[in-house]
């Protein structure tokens, strides 16, 4: 029984981590129809900002929850202004540019911090489940993932920005004709997505360790989740994370994490053959 609970927590944790890693990417993809290939590096910048803040004696909770999203959102806003804005409507070029950006960021991080691993300690100790011990921090990750998803829902549903963003997402020309400053919406959306990536990087920093090329190990799963989920950022992320997180954990449980990823890829390729526009391209079309 206790073991079953532990395995259950593991599965939920896998799904939650996937959702946390993907939500920022999904918001940008849903609103702007571009895949930010530097998403992994945005997360890494979040992790580094958490590490730097922690090593400057900032409170650990502030360092992982407050500093990263703000820092990366600011960087995202600058990047949007300098690079992304010039390429609106040209998806392929935007992807190529963000790829260049991702290489650039890895290089800069290596130059500044070197290629060794920075540590951020997990601020929670273990929790006992019967005779077994589980990490309190993985429960925290689950909680934060839920909070993040709910937070994104509230922003999209209840704020003026969310309303404008949804309008622009449905029909950019119409929104522009109604006087919505679409380029400002895009800029804010991109910064918002970057902030979410930063938050994910901050939360995951104590688990994955922090080094410049760690982004590469995040993005594969995040890409799959986003294209599997389709255009609606929230429902897409949640449903695809649930499906792929389950497949990933199951394969990991049966063999090892690497085959977990392979299973994830195979599942995604088959899903795409059946639903070329992702889950929300077929179902929940009106959803967020």
């Amino acid at each position: 029984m206790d073991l079953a609970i532990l395995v259950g927590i593991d599965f939920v944790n896998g799904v939650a981590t996937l959702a946390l890693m993907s939500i920022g990417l999904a918001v940008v993809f849903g609103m702007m129809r571009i895949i930010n290939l530097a998403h992994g590096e945005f997360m890494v910048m979040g992790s580094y900002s958490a590490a730097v803040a922690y090593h400057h004696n900032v409170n650990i909770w502030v360092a992982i929850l407050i500093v990263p999203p703000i820092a990366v959102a600011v960087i995202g806003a600058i990047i949007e202004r300098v690079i992304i804005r010039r390429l609106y409507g040209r998806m392929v070029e935007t992807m190529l540019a963000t790829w260049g950006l991702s290489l650039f960021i890895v290089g800069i991080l290596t130059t500044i911090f070197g290629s060794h691993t920075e540590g951020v300690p997990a601020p929670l100790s273990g929790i006992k489940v019967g005779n077994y011990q589980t990490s309190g921090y993985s429960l925290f990750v689950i909680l934060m993932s839920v909070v993040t998803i709910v937070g994104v829902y509230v922003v999209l549903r209840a704020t003026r920005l969310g309303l404008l963003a949804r309008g622009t997402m449905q029909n950019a020309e119409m929104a522009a004709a109604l006087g919505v400053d679409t380029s400002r919406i895009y800029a804010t959306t991109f910064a918002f997505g970057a902030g979410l990536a930063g938050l994910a990087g901050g939360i995951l920093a104590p688990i994955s360790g922090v080094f410049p090329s760690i982004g590469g190990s995040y993005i594969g799963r995040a890409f799959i989740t986003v294209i599997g989920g389709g255009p609606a950022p929230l429902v897409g992320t949640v449903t695809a994370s649930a499906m792929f997180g389950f497949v990933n954990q199951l394969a990991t449980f049966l063999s090892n994490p690497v085959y977990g990823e392979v299973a994830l890829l195979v599942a995604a390729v088959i899903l795409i053959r059946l639903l070329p526009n992702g889950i929300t391209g077929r179902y929940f079309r009106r959803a967020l």
Partner: protein
Amino acid sequence: MHPFVRSNASLIAVGVIGIALLVGLPLALELFTLLRVTLFVIFAILALSLAFIWGYGGILCFGHSAFFGLGAYAYAVSVINVGDSTLPIVIAMALPALLAAALGYFMFYARISDVYVGVITLTVTLIFYNVVNSTAGPQYRIGDVHLGGFNGIPNVPSLNVPFDPNAVLGPQDMFWVCMVALMLVYFGLRMLLRMRFGRVLIAVRENESRVEFLGYDARLHKLIAFSIGGAIAGLAGCLFTAWGGFISPTAFSVVQSAQIIIWLMVGGVGTLIGPMIGAALISWLTASLGSQQTVDANVVLGTVLLAFVLLVPKGIAPIVTDQLMPWFLSMCRSKPSVASVSRKDKT
């Protein structure tokens, strides 16, 4: 001028330059430099494979290193097991072609968008990288070969004269083999693009639904083109392993994929000559960067990619086809006349 010469001027020019390099470089360069140039030639083959499927087939493959790495590993594993390099070359081309066909079936028959194709192919290579990296234990072996995880496979034999494992090729022979392979691939692709298949492929890139309204199966054309590209990338991987005698998972890395993309962006998407030049230039650049400590190579590569996407989206090929090539032709002709290399007949 003979009409055949006029209508094939750019092809003949490339052939003349190719033969000149084939004969001249071994005479002009020291062996060490020739070895480096051989690597550029191998990368030029790799660049051609993506130039074909992206520039002419319109297939946005962001994970081309998956085919390169698979070819490289397939060669390493099979040549160590077999001893004679003849069959391993075939395997190194066949496996990536099969992978491309399988992936192509799922992607093209689902008619997914460019963005999805780019992301899926990129993910494929990411996962290949992680998988091969994790094969460090003694249980990961194929025949006599330990895959070796991130350490890779050392001591891979070079190419030999077909069916004669004892006649191993020396460095200079390797240069000739790679150069001939490059020219075969280049002229093979040019020929393919002149045939009906190639023309329809270009038409698919231009307007997929119109091609289908005319009764061609666009999906099948893309699938075949993708497989051809996979096979050529596998050939490049095979030559790469044979050249260095060593292969490691970095062949699958995202940076490797990014480099191929950068060769194309620098050279010019939609041409064949541009990416070859881009491959040589960027490989030379990264090799020079590798020998110093001040600037991180990733910073330079990222900046180059960003700069070309934002500022020079057509790459340097237009300069080559519109200015250098006519100049070269007029030099050959001694009497400058109307540039017969039209924009349409890009090299």
